[in-house]
Every structure is written in structure tokens, then in C-alpha cells.
């Protein structure tokens, strides 16, 4: 039996990413998240994204049959206890979104601002303004020691996106300028920590 919550989470975070836009699957993902429509086509679309290969890897490592199991999908996007370093012969894998995207800055000189958009960020809502939210968050910055999360916050406007009930003071995740989920302060802190750990790990690999 399909884990609908896992599929929904995968669609929620996959929506509006560069590849989803390129493949023209945003409409399918959006309909599934909002209305629960199009199960088969959503699953087919999500399998085209590279994230699916990370889900398969996490699922196999923990013995889960379904790569779209909610625990697996959660591990990849925001982290949970199933997020582990997977040791392989001559290397390891760290199947965490905010880690897997870092390679591109080193390899293709992708702009820092694009990586910042692509990472799953934690924001705290300062104000709601129609369909927009004003949030403060820790941006990704480049120092002489390498990439890190800033020790200061920046304000920015994002789309309310998938969040209907949101208020000042809430912690939320956002990705490509669109709010995705509300989080507790503890969950927000964990995601921030995992992102910082990913950056440290990346620096270690490149040194």
C-alpha cells in the first residue's frame, strides 16, 4: 500500500524546483498536494526527480520497502533519525538535500544565491501580507573558510504557498521562495543544525 503522506511530502518539496519546472510537472505536484488528485501520475513524475534515487538509497539502507515511505522522504528533505551517513567502499553518501546540492557550487560555479534558493531554509514569520510572508532567516554566505550559514538574519519576502494558516512568530520551511511547512522551534533548530553540519562536512571533504 502506498504511503500517501510520503508522496505528498515528496510533492510538496519537489514543487517548483528547477527540474520540476523543466519537466513541466509542477501542475501535477500541486494538484496532488492541494487536492490529493492524480496519484499515479504524481508517483511517475516524482520518480523522474533525482531525489527519488536518494529515497531509494535511504529506504534500502533501513530496510523499508517503499522509497516514498514518509520516514524516508522526511529524512532526505529536512532530516530525522533515519538520516545517516551511508558508508560505501571508497567513500560515503549523505542523502540529505541540503548536502547534495553543495557539489554544484564547487563543480559549476553555480551562484551562491541559487544554492540559497535551492536549500531548504528555516524562516520565522515577521509579518503576513496577503499572499506573501515577510520572514527572517539565516542565508548561506561565503567566507574565506568556505560556505556557511550566516550568523545574522536577513529579511525577505516569500510566497505563503502551501501554508494557509500561518501567523507572526511561526517557524516555517521554504524552498525557492515558497513556504512549504510549519515547524516547531525544536524542528526548526534541528534543520538549521543539520544544514550547518552538512556545510562543515562539505568543507572537510574539500580541504
Amino acid at each position, binding site marked *: 500500500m502506498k504511503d500517501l503522506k510520503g508522496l505528498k511530502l515528496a510533492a510538496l518539496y519537489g514543487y517548483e524546483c528547477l527540474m520540476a519546472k523543466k519537466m513541466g510537472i509542477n501542475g501535477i505536484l500541486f494538484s496532488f498536494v492541494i487536492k490529493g488528485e492524480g496519484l499515479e501520475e504524481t508517483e511517475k513524475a516524482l520518480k523522474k526527480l533525482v531525489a527519488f*534515487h536518494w529515497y531509494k538509497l535511504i529506504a534500502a539502507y533501513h530496510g523499508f520497502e517503499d522509497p516514498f515511505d514518509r520516514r524516508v522522504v522526511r529524512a532526505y528533505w529536512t532530516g530525522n533519525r533515519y538520516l545517516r551517513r551511508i558508508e560505501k567502499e571508497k*567513500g560515503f553518501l549523505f542523502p540529505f538535500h541540503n548536502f547534495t546540492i553543495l557539489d554544484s557550487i564547487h563543480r559549476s560555479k553555480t551562484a551562491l544565491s541559487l544554492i540559497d534558493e535551492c536549500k531548504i531554509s528555516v524562516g520565522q514569520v515577521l509579518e503576513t501580507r496577503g499572499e506573501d510572508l515577510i520572514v527572517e532567516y539565516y542565508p548561506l554566505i561565503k567566507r574565506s573558510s568556505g560556505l556557511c550559514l550566516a550568523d545574522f538574519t536577513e529579511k525577505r519576502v516569500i510566497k505563503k504557498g502551501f501554508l494557509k494558516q500561518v501567523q507572526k512568530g511561526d517557524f516555517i520551511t521554504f524552498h525557492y521562495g515558497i513556504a512549504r511547512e510549519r515547524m516547531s522551534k525544536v524542528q526548526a533548530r534541528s534543520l538549521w543544525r543539520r544544514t550547518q553540519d552538512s556545510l562543515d562536512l562539505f568543507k572537510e571533504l574539500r580541504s
Partner: protein
Amino acid sequence: MCLTIPAKVIKVSGAEAEVDFLGKKEKINCQLIRVKKGDYVMVSNGFAVKKISRKEAKEILRILKEEK
């Protein structure tokens, strides 16, 4: 996944492959997927994670270039 860079496989030797990353040659690990010379792959942290078509690879590189 959003930002995973494609590379072209130049040579395969057991569980390792030599790839061309935007003109730069690198060795990658291909324990996760089976690859052959001429394939295009998405690479993360030194591991090939997904095979893609030449057309897809060119399209991804174009998108990344435009977004810079």
C-alpha cells in the same frame, strides 16, 4: 535534488569511472548504478546517482548557466 551536475562517462574501470565534468576530468564511484562509456550521469559527492540522456544533460547545464 534540484542542483545535481551532469557528467559524461569517458572510461569505466570496475566500480570506478572517469567522467568529464564541464571539461574537467574526474574519477567517480559507480557502485550505485551501472554505467558505460558515453553515458551521462548525475553525480553527487563523487557518486553517480542517476543516468540521464544526452539531451537532458545539455538542458540541465543550460539551465544552470542561465541561472548563474
